[in-house]
């Protein structure tokens, strides 16, 4: 073997990390005596590094690099001072007056102590209270509350904000928010829902109550994403799923991939593949049975009070029937809240079949309204393949009310509903369609703003002209 061949073999071993100390010494000796070999080694090394750089080059890698770099920048002065000031105790004028009586020497001591305290606070802020950002709020609507960074509560989170571990609450029937993790996994909470997110060794979500739709990127081997609800634990590899969690039951629907579900009440475990669903509950004889997701229905009738999400149940409203009366709900800025009066029903929680919204469908609503005013009617929808699809609204003005508590019938055409966030529809029509036609109905609600109109709903019905639905392609693919 000549010197060139020996060099090539040693150099290749070096680049592959397979060269031992003796080999390294030989390589050094070879290149030391030959300028040409040294140049070849440097050329090869630089090419090796550039190939590595190109192979790793991707948009997500660039995004990670930019984000990590921005995270490492020292906080700007204004923000820094504001943070420090928030951690200083507020002083009353009386205390201030007492302090003025102190001698100069004592004041110096107090000042020194204050500096030490301030520095300790600064240290705490800079080093003890820093949490890595794990997800970004990409879209939202309506009031959300975020609790994170050591328990700090904020109501003014907005799309684009990066968040560390913490709890996001969707506070109103018409509110929702989508979080996107660094690996592209997207999770949407909607309606009155409470979700805690964390990411240490693996992603963990805690859905205390409410609706969550998720599209999860493939997770690293052995580090499944975990979703905890009051009644179930779900291990998610990479999939699309919808979860509707209450205090006593959790409905899981898997559109894509595989989810391992554990019913907490008895520890039973089942694997839920694409196109299947399971209900985990806390009943004494609750059995977690996996069932194939059924084809959609296009007609639906409420079942009150079982479907109640929000509102006060009146058991006897009109001789034999009960009704769901609107209940107050604070909305928006907690310093200047707006009072809504809300009735909300779940469409999906107690039904094995999805309800598909089709063209020409009408909502027939029976209820009572005690005083005239504007009533907003809303829908929460999801895509047939899984994933939150937005909320839709329509309003009706009731100028005349029926006296004597008589029930009235309201008819709403599906085509009259418009997207709640039209800007999002313009920007991302695939995610947030302009029409609810072709989407699945998750929940239904109505409300009045500021005025309690005494709204009572006894029944909601989705009435479609088509009795046997033609099954959309998306269902056949499930």
């Amino acid at each position, binding site marked *: 073997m000549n010197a060139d061949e020996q060099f090539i073999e040693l150099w290749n071993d070096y680049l592959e990390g397979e060269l031992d100390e003796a080999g390294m010494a030989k390589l050094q000796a070879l290149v030391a005596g030959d300028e040409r070999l040294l140049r070849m080694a440097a050329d090869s090394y630089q090419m090796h590094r550039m190939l590595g750089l190109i192979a790793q080059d991707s948009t997500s890698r660039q995004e990670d*690099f930019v984000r990590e770099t921005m995270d490492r920048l020292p906080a700007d002065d204004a923000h820094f001072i504001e943070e420090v000031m928030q951690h200083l105790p507020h002083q009353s004028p009386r205390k201030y007056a007492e302090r003025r009586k102190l001698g100069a020497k004592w004041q110096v001591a107090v000042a020194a102590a204050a500096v030490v305290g301030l520095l300790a606070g600064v240290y705490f802020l800079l080093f003890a209270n820093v949490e890595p950002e794990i997800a970004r709020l990409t879209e939202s609507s309506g009031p959300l509350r975020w609790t994170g960074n050591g328990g700090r509560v904020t109501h003014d989170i907005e799309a684009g904000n990066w968040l560390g571990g913490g709890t996001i609450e969707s506070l109103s029937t018409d509110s929702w928010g989508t979080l996107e993790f660094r690996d592209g996994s997207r999770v949407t909470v909607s309606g009155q829902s409470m979700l805690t997110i964390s990411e240490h060794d693996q992603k963990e979500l805690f859905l205390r109550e409410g609706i969550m739709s998720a599209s999860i990127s493939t997770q690293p081997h052995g580090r499944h994403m975990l979703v905890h609800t009051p009644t179930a634990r779900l291990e998610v590899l990479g999939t699309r799923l919808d979860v509707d969690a209450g205090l006593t039951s959790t409905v899981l629907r898997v559109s894509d991939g595989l989810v391992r579900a554990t019913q907490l009440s008895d520890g039973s475990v089942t694997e839920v593949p694409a196109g299947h669903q399971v209900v985990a509950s806390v009943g004494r004889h609750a059995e977690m049975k996996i069932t194939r997701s059924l084809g959609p229905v296009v007609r639906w009738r409420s079942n009150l009070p079982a479907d109640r999400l929000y509102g006060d149940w009146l058991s006897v409203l009109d001789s034999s029937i009960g009704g769901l009366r609107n209940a107050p709900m604070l909305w928006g800025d907690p310093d200047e809240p707006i009072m809504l009066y809300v009735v909300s029903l779940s469409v999906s929680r107690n039904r094995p079949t999805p309800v598909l919204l089709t063209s020409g469908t009408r909502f027939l609503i029976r209820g009572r309204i005690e005083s005239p005013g504007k009533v907003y009617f809303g829908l929460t929808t999801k895509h047939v393949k899984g994933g939150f699809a937005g909320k839709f609204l329509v309003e009706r003005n009731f100028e005349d009310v029926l006296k004597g508590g008589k029930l009235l019938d309201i008819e709403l055409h599906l085509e009259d509903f418009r997207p709640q966030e039209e800007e999002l529809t313009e920007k991302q029509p695939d995610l947030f369609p302009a029409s609810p036609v072709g989407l699945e109905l998750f929940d239904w609600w109505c409300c009045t703003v500021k005025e309690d109109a005494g709204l009572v709903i006894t029944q909601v019905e989705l009435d479609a002209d088509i009795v046997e639905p033609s099954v959309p392609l998306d269902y056949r693919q499930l």
Partner: protein
Amino acid sequence: MMTRKDSINELSLDDAIFSVREGNTAAFEVVVRQCERRLRAWLAVQGPPGVDVDEVAQRSFVAAFTRLSDYESGTNFATWLFTIAHFQLKTEMTRLRRVADYHARYAPDLLQRELERRGSEPPELQETRLEHLQTCLGQLGEDLYRFIRWRYVEEIPLEEMAARSGRSVAAVKKQLWKLRRKLHACVEARMATEGEPL
């Protein structure tokens, strides 16, 4: 509707630097986005084995941010940034040299010196090389490109590459060596004839 982030990212480099100096930290993202690729490319080829390119690049950006008041408007920002990066790289190399068995494990001493000698090249050239390399890779046939894909994208072991290609491990190593040489020649030929791509 355009978000605040969108509008920030539409700033020119000069406007972004001005904005950062006015106290808008978020505008520094524009600086990072516009400079990160060429900075990482330069560090990748200048840094000896064992240097964490992303770490040094991030330290360079942080140092540039904190010293932005030293930067003279109207001069070449990239040159100023690379001066900082050069210093950061030297600091990292000093740290590595002090690691007891660094040379035994990572770096033939002469290679390091040769890389340092090449460090006098204008940093922008490395980004140009990177772009030419992408063109050269596109000209490789699948029978050759698959070795690059296996080694650098899929990062599979040599034994697996040998099994997939039906060759010996030694033959695979030789193939990789030849490919690097071929790509180097292609890139340098393009540098000589075309210079900087449009």
